């Protein structure tokens, strides 16, 4: 007689049957619905223990807050569960390929997180006396050295808080340089049609007038049209290189020369630096200012929409106008150059853009990443990111229209259009179809110069096996869309939510939670 399996367990074969769509809870196994904290918490509950409240003199000037604030609390287990459940309704790089073109969603190394949390960085006050925070200034100085050297530029402003803030920093330096030369009349910034929306918005925010530069059939800046427009009213150009069609601008040096000859400056949007880091130095192309998204090329996490970090590298011509504060090495000491210490040496600085020193937490992460890769690894980053994008381009061009595929290789992102999709089907349907396949969609409808654009940026941190699986899914969804499969039109079917009504959200904005009006009270 056997002694195994005394528990009585028997292998079973599942009964076949149709699943009903509804459950009592609304949950579907691991797909868990989660209410709002306002629906589950109460203002009396707290998940934090304090010692006895000491008694003492109140000096609140009679301003005591008497009315309820309406902030619900949860105990710690409830809070951890609330956020953990919510987190599982998110797609993330940790779960799979995140091929958002122009966003560079690469792996975020956990060493970066650990280093940023060292108490010497994380628990350091920004106004600590400078002698007591030399290590922090050294981090900033080392990162600055890497950024300047990798880009072949003259200096770097570290304080801008994100890409668009870096753009602002760059165009303000251009304005300041022109004003210093008495060229207040130069008010026009030329921006290609394919630019990120932040470029024209930034230029306008800084008081410039924006004019479009047309693109060529091959997806590049139209050099002739650009040269014709240059003149005494033009402050400069804002160009993205590699551009938003995923192509390198081969005429960049000539563009820079023409703009400089006409008395303007060249701003380069560095959002796509990942494609060329370690292979091309923007300084060799005549750029005057370029922001670097540390949250793209240098792997600091996007966090669901920030925080970012957008240091700006400058040419020698714009360096005197760079913003305060910045860190300088004087002998063995690192000093903070701010309003009082700018002196004659930095008297032309256009001023301060943020309180304190910028995104220190992102600096420690980016420096950690850069030191991990080194100069050799960063060059490999560019090569693998470009290789991965071209692999996708050539594996897809027979099922999706690739408008620039004939003109040569792409850089780190591959672009497709909606040409060839049947009536009633569009880019959005392909994107939503990919969601059901377990992938985050590519960037859609951007850049505007390509109809129904699909911009795919795989990054270098994806394996060939992952790319092959993505290509398989992308081909399948594209083919189904071409064949008019209605399941693609109504995708996603398997996500935590079906397509959401964005029109309703905008027409009747509900931006904060309000206690629902009870039926009896309403009567």
């Amino acid at each position, binding site marked *: 007689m056997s002694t195994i399996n005394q528990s009585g367990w028997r292998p079973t074969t599942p009964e076949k049957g149709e699943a009903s769509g509804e459950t009592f809870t609304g949950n579907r196994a691991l797909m868990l619905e989660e209410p709002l904290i306002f629906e589950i918490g109460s203002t009396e509950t707290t998940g934090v223990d304090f010692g006895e409240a000491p008694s003492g003199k109140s000096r609140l000037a009679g301003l005591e807050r008497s009315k309820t604030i309406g902030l619900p609390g949860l105990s710690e287990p409830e809070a951890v569960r609330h956020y953990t459940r919510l987190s599982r309704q998110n797609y993330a790089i940790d779960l799979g390929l995140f091929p958002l073109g122009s966003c560079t969603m690469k792996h975020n190394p956990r060493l970066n997180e650990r280093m940023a949390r060292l108490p010497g960085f994380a628990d350091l006050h920004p106004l600590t006396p400078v002698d007591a925070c030399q290590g922090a200034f050294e981090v900033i100085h080392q990162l600055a050295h890497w950024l300047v050297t*990798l880009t072949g530029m003259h200096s770097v402003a570290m304080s801008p808080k994100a890409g668009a803030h870096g753009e602002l920093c760059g165009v303000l330096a251009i304005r300041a340089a022109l004003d210093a030369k008495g060229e207040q009349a130069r008010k026009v910034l030329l921006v290609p049609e394919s630019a990120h929306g932040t470029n024209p918005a930034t230029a306008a925010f800084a008081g410039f007038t924006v004019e479009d530069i047309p693109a060529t059939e091959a997806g590049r800046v139209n050099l002739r049209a650009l040269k014709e427009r240059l003149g005494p009213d033009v402050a400069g150009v804002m160009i993205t290189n590699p551009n938003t069609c995923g192509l390198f601008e081969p005429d960049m040096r000539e563009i820079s020369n023409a703009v400089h000859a006409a008395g303007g400056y060249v701003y380069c949007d560095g959002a796509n630096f990942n494609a060329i880091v370690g292979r091309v130095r923007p300084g060799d192309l005549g750029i005057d200012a370029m922001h670097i998204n540390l949250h793209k090329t240098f792997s600091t996490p996007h966090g669901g929409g920030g925080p970012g970090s957008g240091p700006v590298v400058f040419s020698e011509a714009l360096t005197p106008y760079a913003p305060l504060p910045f860190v300088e090495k004087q002998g063995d000491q690192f000093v903070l150059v701010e309003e009082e210490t700018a002196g004659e040496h930095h008297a032309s600085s256009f001023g301060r853009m943020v309180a304190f020193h910028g995104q220190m937490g992102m600096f420690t992460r980016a420096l950690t990443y850069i030191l991990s890769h080194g100069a*050799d690894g960063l060059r490999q980053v560019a090569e693998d990111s470009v290789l991965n994008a071209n692999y996708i381009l050539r594996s897809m061009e027979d099922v999706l229209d690739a408008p620039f595929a004939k003109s040569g290789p792409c850089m780190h992102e591959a672009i497709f259009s909606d040409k060839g999709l049947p009536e009633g089907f569009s880019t959005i349907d392909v994107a939503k179809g990919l969601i059901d396949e377990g992938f985050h969609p590519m960037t859609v409808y951007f850049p505007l110069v390509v109809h129904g654009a699909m911009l795919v940026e795989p990054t270098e941190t994806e394996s060939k096996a992952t790319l092959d699986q993505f290509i398989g899914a992308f081909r399948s969804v594209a083919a189904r869309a071409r064949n008019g499969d209605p399941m693609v039109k109504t995708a996603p079917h398997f996500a935590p939510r079906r397509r959401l009504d964005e029109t309703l959200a905008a027409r009747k904005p509900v931006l904060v939670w309000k206690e629902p009006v009870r039926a009896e009270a309403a009567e």
Partner: protein
Amino acid sequence: MRYLPLTQTDRQAMLATIGASWIDDLFVDVPEAARLDGPVHGLPLHASELAVERHMSALAKKNLAAGDVPFFLGAGAYRHHVPASVDHIIQRGEFLTAYTPYQPEIAQGTLQVMFEFQTQVARLLGCDVANASMYDGSTACWEAIVMARRVTKRGKAILSGGLHPHYVSVANTMAKFTGDQLVTSLPSFSPEPDTLDLINSIDDDTSCVVVQYPDILGRIEDMSALAEACHAKKALLVAVVTEPVALGAIKSPGEMGADIVVGEGQSLGVGLQFGGPYVGLFACSEKLVRQMPGRLCGETVDAEGKRGFVLTLSTREQHIRREKATSNICTSSVLCALAMSAHMTLLGEAGLRRLAEINHVAASAAADRLAEIDGVELVTDRFFNEFTLKLSKEARPVVRALADKGILAGVSLGRLYPEATELQNGLIVAVTETTTEEDVETLASALEEALA
């Protein structure tokens, strides 16, 4: 290299698929003169995790961390105890490594967090609505000034002398380029903020008055009269809060009539981080919402009628409006907003009120102790957890000397206002629940010695 999955075999196979013989074929568009033939010169090569950790740890050790010493620094960045679960939550990969929620069906986690954050912030600041966060307090403050210009179609903003000098400095920088007119002043050692002066300077060209609460010297005052004066002239009142924990104890600016309330959310959940990343707060009344900058999340339903959340009112934003957008801001500070939101959820109203009470009582006791010292004068008797002392000598060298002894005594006004000779003896001292009575005693003895 540990972050790069492709093998040499993979690379060869992929190049073959592409029809290229080697990697340089993919960089043909780069002009020859600009191509680098190897790794950038003068920079080190790749390093192991252990080696990098050694390098970074050595740098971290050169800093005087707040938790290691008696610590009294504030002036726009505050040290509070953050529950361990907050850091655990923000390190969930699904939050940490997600992008801006452009595909809402697979981003409901981030979107619901934004919606909860917007509601918490609106309630805390006393406003109808709040956005999903800005870069930080200083940039949110400037955005509020610009918004007031859009709403009132007037170009003159009056900034209180009690506004954080870095915030004033940011606004001054931006105004140089936008043509906005700013009226600024320095703080003075008076027990009350400059409310009466502000009221008297409002005129028909004024777009807004910007006032900080508690102000840079820690002072608090009812702003109802100021709000009325603004509204009488059809100007807006913008209130700036750099220490949101205070609002667990004192009335919100919204309750007192502020039209736009902005602030720095760092003190809840985010930590000091040497100044960033932080989280800018931005709230206003419902009627102004379409002029508000920044990301907004709104409630809606999906194709099956289930509640869900999306980014909304994006017709204000740059990716739709380009040069006509309300702001050029693209990123917000969502992960820091999550940290702040989770901390507020753990505290709840009861916890926040208790925390605020502990801060106030501890600060009040510390003020009494320090004011006993010869050569120390307490500037005001109306504050929350931060107050200003007027010393009998310049504060800046005193702060430096105490730092050498391992005491971070506070922020000297000389550091913040190097040009203002009349303020050089001022020392701003912040006291929170992390400050112990021994810390206060250590500071008191050292100050006594330094001022003797």
